[in-house]
């Protein structure tokens, strides 16, 4: 049913996201784009060198996350999947929506599981994506 799927993760809810993605796959060929966004925004007065260090560490973390996604989706069992890794820098919600538009994906898969306190204090990427996504979204509910 879906030919191009965008799986966006920040490293949380990985097992649940992978499980739900695999559940909707059929025998038809499908392209899956694994996306990790390095959030580069830092508060005013953050030292420049510390910002560079943060971005380098987040890139490194993103690489590991995308590699583990690749390991799952590129296994021989999932012969129908053509997997691609994308690592971007910027605001996670904006980058997810922009990539979905540019790549014309059919479905975005995201995890969601923050409690109300965390949502108020940290914000919610999935809520922002829901409001401006150009396609269907599968929000994987996690505990």
């Amino acid at each position: 049913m879906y030919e191009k799927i965008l799986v966006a993760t920040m490293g949380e809810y990985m097992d649940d996201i992978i499980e739900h993605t695999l559940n909707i796959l059929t025998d038809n060929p499908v392209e899956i784009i694994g996306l990790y966004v390095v959030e580069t925004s830092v508060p005013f007065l953050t030292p420049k060198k510390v910002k560079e260090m943060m971005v380098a560490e987040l890139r490194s973390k993103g690489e590991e996350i995308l590699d583990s996604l690749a390991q799952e989706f590129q296994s021989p069992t999932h012969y129908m999947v053509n997997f691609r890794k994308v690592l971007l820098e910027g605001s996670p919600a904006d980058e997810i929506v922009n990539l979905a538009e540019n790549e014309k994906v059919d479905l975005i898969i995201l995890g969601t599981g923050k409690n109300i306190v965390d949502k108020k204090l940290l914000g919610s990427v999935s809520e922002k994506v829901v409001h401006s996504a150009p396609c269907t979204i599968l929000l994987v509910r996690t505990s």
Partner: protein
Amino acid sequence: MLIIALVISLIIVVKSADVFVDNLVDIGAALGISQIILGVTASAIGTSLPEFGSALIATLSGSVDIGVGTVIGSNIWNIAGILGISATVAGVIRTNKEGLNRDWLMTLITGLILLFFMFFGDINWVASIVMVIAYSIYLWLLIKSERGKNQEDAVKDEKDNKDDYPSGVQFKQDKKSINKKTIGFVIVGLLGLIVGCRLLVFSAVELASIAGIPEMIMGLFTLAIGTSIPELVVTLSSAMKGLHDLSIGTVLGSNTFNILIGIGIPALIMQVPVEPLSLSFDAPVMILTTILLMVLIRMGKMKLNRIGGIILIATYVSYAIFRIFIFP
């Protein structure tokens, strides 16, 4: 007017420290100093220069209480205030056992070294030499640990052959040449730091005198919290981004630097007098806060959770109330 001067001088101090460290690292890289040494030193010192500068300038200009107050106050605020706020907002700060044990133990030992020398009255050059040697050992341990980590990463990268993206928690290896602009920025940063700290201390002293607030209180709270803005932004944003090692490491590394260098260097130049209340109340609170942090992390199974964060904030508020209203 004085409050505006205080805020402006704080911004000057923090930005100047950033410009100074940033360009000094570039010069160090051009001179061929190891990236690991530069990285560790820049992150350890970068956020703590405002406290150091203020403490040094305050001590040299005769406002010793402000200098000592800024250092001890910053250390209590860093743990109880900054880590408390960060854990409350981010929900959790995870810890790396090895790094935490090293940094926490060093912070505790540092606090005990200060308390030990405070018992003998004024902090003099003997204490200063012990402190500077202790900090050199700590820096060496940090560099050794970072070297080991980088070697492990290099082996892992080679094994996995994953070269899709540049990686590694270190500064870029590109060797730049020293240009006039970089040297100029170092000088501008240093001048900004000196002028900013002087203005900061001056406005704090004047404000204390006009409002009838003891200089120690001014140092313990206003300057301590103000000069810790870099620690606050780094700790909070890295906790929110899930960079837990950086979050807790910034605070503990800063506390070690604040005492060993923030008091150690001024004590090399002149004797730093100790106020009785600092010995009997502020320094013990600083050490107890450090111990409380470890207790909360252990209780949270090597994580500082939101409840731990709220307990730390409550501890800071209680300390501030006691110190300002009961033992001013």
